[in-house]
């Protein structure tokens, strides 16, 4: 793909103000001081910035921030989706084959520890001790992120269980094991980590308070053999959980954006910028943040796709003709294949295509559809849960790796305070 097309597409979507903020956040530099002139057209600003950053191999900093920005504006799956695909196709490093967070954290920690091993004059120590707030903020956000990842996994498993049982009951099939779902609901209702409650400014969403799950689990236990009532309760529980997860994911998405490792470098006393390790430290901090944004973005994209999958599943289940479903099914199909391509090591693309081809053939060959196609879609959805869990587990691993920063930071602060 010609790169000019990509620059032009980005320029079409972003305003000057957006571009300036993105470049500052991703590189720490004022765009007009380093990369281009204010009079340049937007397309040209982007081209010059990316070309200059590409020389040391840092172009992915800006590109990932652009992708993240588009997603945070609700542009994913809409007009921003096309631009995002163009970016990834032209610059695969932005989302494909990302570096390991664990490795980047190790590199960063080594550099931090190395710098702090250097004997420090008392003046510098005092300078650092007077600015502990930013260090504490980084620690708090890392802890919250780690707790979020673990809790999200629990919620996701409950979501799958609710969806599975609700689908069985809606289609008048037997659903043994509702007790275990009720137990899972109780576990989630009481399991929200305190770190999440204290960190985010927003209140729990109305209608999405997971404490409600306890009430529903009790009702589920007394529903007995009334499968209609049980299906209704599961549907309500699913909606509450989905809203809660949307709220939580949004809070985390913003939280990661706000997770700023820059204090690790900017709060260091001025003299330390002359140390030979300082340049590597700057590089490490920006690399880590960029990779983290890319990871959380991919995590969000898969979650959004699961939501879309839920809708299409319900549409497949209702009476319709193949043409009616096309406009919902085809974009979803294309999106999943695209997401699968972002993980070449997992070989999901072929599997995604195989399931989708079967459904395509059915839609193409039939003028009216029966339950078979809904069953085929359900099979496809079951398969998708594998990649979803894998992505979720990968993100959880990333968050645990970040947690490694926590201890050394505390130790450094304690050392400095001596």
């Amino acid at each position, binding site marked *: 793909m010609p790169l000019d097309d990509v620059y032009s597409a980005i320029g079409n979507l972003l305003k000057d103000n957006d571009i300036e903020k993105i470049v500052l956040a991703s590189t720490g530099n004022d765009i007009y001081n380093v990369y281009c002139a204010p009079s340049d057209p937007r397309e040209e600003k982007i081209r010059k910035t990316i070309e200059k950053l590409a020389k040391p191999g840092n172009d992915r900093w800006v590109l990932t921030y652009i992708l993240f920005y588009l997603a945070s504006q609700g542009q994913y799956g809409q007009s921003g989706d096309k631009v995002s695909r163009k970016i990834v196709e032209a610059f695969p490093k932005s989302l494909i084959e990302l570096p390991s967070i664990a490795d980047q954290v190790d590199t960063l920690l080594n550099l931090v520890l190395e710098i702090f091993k250097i004997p420090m004059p008392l003046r510098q120590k005092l300078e650092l001790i007077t600015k502990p707030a930013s260090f504490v903020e980084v620690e708090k956000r890392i802890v919250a992120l780690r707790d979020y990842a673990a809790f999200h996994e629990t919620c996701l498993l409950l979501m799958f269980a609710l969806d599975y049982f609700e689908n069985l009951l*809606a289609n008048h099939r037997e659903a043994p094991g509702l007790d275990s779902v009720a137990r899972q609901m109780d576990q989630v209702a009481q399991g929200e980590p305190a770190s999440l409650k204290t960190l985010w400014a927003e209140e729990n969403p109305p209608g*999405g308070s997971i404490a409600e799950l306890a009430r529903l689990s009790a009702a589920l236990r007394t529903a007995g053999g009334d499968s209609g009532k049980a299906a209704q309760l599961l549907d309500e529980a699913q909606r509450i959980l989905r*809203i809660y997860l949307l*709220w939580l994911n949004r809070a985390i998405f913003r939280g990661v954006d706000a997770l700023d490792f820059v204090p690790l470098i900017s709060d260091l006393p001025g003299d330390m910028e002359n140390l030979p390790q300082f340049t590597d430290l700057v590089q490490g901090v920006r690399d880590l943040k960029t990779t983290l944004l890319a990871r959380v973005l991919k995590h969000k994209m898969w979650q959004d796709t699961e939501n879309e999958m839920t809708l299409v599943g319900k549409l497949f289940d209702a009476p319709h003709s*193949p043409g009616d479903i096309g406009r919902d099914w085809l974009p979803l199909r294309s999106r999943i294949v695209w997401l699968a391509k972002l993980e070449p090591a997992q070989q999901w693309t072929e599997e995604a295509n195989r399931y989708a081809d079967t459904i395509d053939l059915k839609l193409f060959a*039939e003028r009216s559809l029966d339950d078979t196609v809904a069953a085929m879609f359900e099979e496809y959805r079951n398969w998708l849960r594998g990649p979803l869990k894998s992505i979720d587990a990968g993100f959880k691993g990333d968050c645990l790796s970040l947690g490694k920063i926590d201890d050394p930071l505390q130790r450094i602060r304690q050392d400095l305070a001596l």
Partner: protein
Amino acid sequence: MSDHAQEGSPQPAQATPAARYQTLAALRQAHQSLKQRSAETPQASDGNPADAIRAFLADARRTGAYLADPKERRAAQGILDYWNAELFTLPGAGSVDFAPSLLEPCDPSLSADPASAPAPTDQSGLIRFTAFARQWQSAGRPSGYLLTGGAIEQAKQFWGVDSDLDAFIRASAVQERAVKAREDRKKYFWLGAVASAAGVAALVGYWYASLQRNMNFYIQSLQSNPQKQAEALEFLNNGQRWLPPYDLSGLRFPLKGVRLSGRLDLKAPNFSLDHFEDVSFTEAKLVGASFVGSNFSFAGGAAGNDLSNALLQQAQFREAKIASTSFDGAGLYRSVFDRAALCGTTFAGADLRRASFWGTFIDPKTKESLRQTAWYLAEGWSWDLVEDFAHWNGEDAAWTRHLKASKGFKEDIGRGLDSYAKASADSLGQALALADIAWTRATWGIDVAKADTPAKDDATVPDAVKVAPTALDATDRALAIVEKLNSLSDDGRRSVSANILDTKAYVLLQSGRAADAVTIFEQIKAGAPQLGSSESLFRYAIAQYAAGIDKTVWMANLAAALKQGYQPTHELHSLKAMIFRQPEIETAIGEATMRRWPKPEISGRDCPAP
């Protein structure tokens, strides 16, 4: 249920106005439309998508009052949940937006207003073009699979739905442009040679500027100098290839005595509110032209106009007054004559597929001429006219030959014949091509169950016609291929194609084998407990009536199909012997038609004196 959800319970039904979307189909269409709008709204446009979603959710909740079927409710609630989730992701979403939007409970006293049901849209093209796109991708993107001509335009209506399809359309358009450019290069080789010798850039720049100046001059001269009209149009025609579409609307003088037969080729020109008298634009290419409110010889004694064999696809003749004008053999696919007046106008052999004639005044001479067309492939006809056409029995062999030679039929059938020729022997592609051919014949009512047997050694006869001269042969052959493929496959795709069976049942029904048609419809129904599309249900009802099945059964199916918004078109011709023999069927369809196409109140459309 949470407190909030209880707060969202509906007011008593009598206190609330009718819901905007009263069926799942209407809700789905609105959902699709909102999705489309979201996809087309760039970030930079500063629109407020959150407000649009909030408004949609408010309207959509009320659909619940009309939905009783649990699966329909589940799907409708799924749509609400989806937009709730979309709303949460927008930057402007506040805490209040996290409140779930729940469907109102079903109110058994309410029933959907049939007029609120969305008009059935042709989505089969989406599935078909997407399948072509996937075949093209999987075969390594060979150029031979790409679309050409009008097919590209048809596929473009699905732009943005699927990325593979977008790539396929883009590649087709690029190839089309390349082919056209090659042809142009040959044609204008000498021009290129001269231009390159003289310094291309300077010359072209100067030339283009003078072309624009001349264009303005000639448009002015059309306004001010009735003597120079032919010359002006001739120039504009020659310059059109390099210039944007012309706005020639509201000319002060009528276009009179202009004769540009076979030469006029303009890109979507605007002739709105213009007067035409004694004009000959035969074989002109005026795709997408606008003649809204124009006047074609609509004055006593004015000489008529000739637009015969002109290409006028998607042209707009809304509210035009047209007298003594010939559209014989014209391509009027998707053109619009809504609320126009047609007096002494002829359409013999014109392609009227998907053209619209809602509220059109049609005098007896025009009506006679419309009989020489596949009028039943157009829409919007008044019920009086449909009844009049239905009681005409002049469809003899000559009439059939005439239609068979028409541009529209050739284009429709050509698509299937080409696909058949390109597909591998006994492949799914060949079966689908045969199904396409059968469907075309069934809807046009041509070669349905009987046809002349083609000579096997005649190279001019396409292979598909030799293999299957009639629609019935085509469906049988297609079904045989599908059966064979199913027997080879062991991956759970053993379903018999309901699509082809549905076509076969329609063919049998037209051939007087109603009982056989009913058997097939029931076979389809056994595989799909609720017949998926309202059009199948409609034909099923007619077949049940024709087969002598109990009246309550077919009346229920007929009412259901019409309630779902199905508006018969080709069936009004192909099944007229059944529809117009039974007064209750005729009345039910008539009432549905009048609801869909209410007669507009328009005055001042009396035909001019000859």
